[in-house]
């Protein structure tokens, strides 16, 4: 989750998010350089005493300020496309989870081996146990094993929702009547928070997503427990 006064991204918990962090650093540096140059030019224009406005035909600078932006755009596009194709690679997941968006909660179904599923409602503010995060914590988290490729199939039961977990670098729309697939690997154990990212009615801000990543051995304990309870 975000920490107080945070300015940048949350720390990455998946390899894709790490790539996105580095790409953002690279692109932001380019943007800062361009903005600084433009700001300098504006300052120079405003304070200059020169008044010749009728310069024509300066081929050299025209070539430079055509080629240089093209080069910069290529320098941005190549890493971007690399990450795009990286995200789409064949990944042979160990586990498939289905996430369904409802008004106004998520439900998760684990149907690979045995069938079990559960609803995940936000904990209301008045029912928070001390230390729980307001508007973020849920009653049942989506639990997955660490360091295993996981496929999530996302859909919705009624209106558009969007399943997003920033620290894993995932956002995928939940469209009624459509299955959207995304995959991720969680690099380190922990609890990762996200919020519904497509306006879906009155409680759109109150249906968060919580992913809990635990080592595989403990995951199997958890799924056995859930199976017995359902």
């Amino acid at each position, binding site marked *: 989750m975000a920490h107080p006064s*945070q300015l940048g991204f949350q720390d990455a918990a998946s390899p894709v998010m790490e790539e996105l962090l580095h790409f953002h650093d690279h692109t932001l540096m380019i943007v800062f350089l361009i903005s600084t140059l433009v700001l300098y030019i504006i300052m120079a224009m405003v304070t200059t005493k020169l008044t010749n*406005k009728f310069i024509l035909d300066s081929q050299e600078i025209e070539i430079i300020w055509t080629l240089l932006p093209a080069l910069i755009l290529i320098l941005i596009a190549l890493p971007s496309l690399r990450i795009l194709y990286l995200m789409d690679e064949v990944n042979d997941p160990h586990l498939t989870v289905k996430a369904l968006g409802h008004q106004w909660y998520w439900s998760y179904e684990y149907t690979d081996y045995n069938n079990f599923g559960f609803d995940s409602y936000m904990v209301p503010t008045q029912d928070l146990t001390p230390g*729980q995060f*307001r508007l973020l914590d849920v009653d049942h988290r989506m639990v997955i094993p660490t360091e295993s490729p996981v496929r999530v199939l996302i859909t919705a039961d009624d209106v558009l929702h969007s399943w997003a977990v920033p620290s894993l670098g995932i956002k995928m729309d939940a469209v009624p009547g459509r299955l959207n697939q995304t995959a991720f690997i969680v690099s380190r154990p922990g609890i990762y928070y996200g919020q519904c990212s497509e306006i879906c009615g009155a409680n759109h801000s109150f249906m968060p997503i919580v992913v809990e990543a635990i080592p595989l051995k403990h995951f199997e304990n958890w799924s056995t427990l859930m199976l017995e309870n359902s």
Partner: protein
Amino acid sequence: MLATRALSLIGKRAISTSVCVRGGHGVAKVEDYSLPAYFDRREIPLPDVAYVQALTPEQKTLKEKEKGSWAALSNAEKVALYRISFKESFAEMNQATSEWKSVVGGIMFFIGFTGLVVLWQRHYVYGPVPHTFDKEYKEMELQRMLDMRINPVQGFSAKWDYENNQWKK
């Protein structure tokens, strides 16, 4: 006047045009689609027309004297001739104004006013904040975030010294 000045930015003119056509009492050939008008612009030093079009009798005699040797003109006469052709000198037209002080003052005033509006709203409009903003609750939240190792790489937990139970120096 403003239209002429705007058009003179986009209209094509070379300085030589106004110089070579400037024959009698200054009306230049204007290449953009505007009537000749007077303007004081630093980057276009020679306006389409002279400032004073209707000369007084003294000015007319001065103009006749101008046709002779310029060394015979006194300084005052040269300045008078200048003032016939131009309204402001370069020094006068390039003078800074104090307008920026009014602008900054206005900005600060309105920001201050907005602050007062916000304070009023907080007092009269909004209800109390949730109990999760209490100091004790916040401390419990922070402890839980540290226990969960939130953002342990560079962000939050990375700055906590777990051995000595304090923030890293």
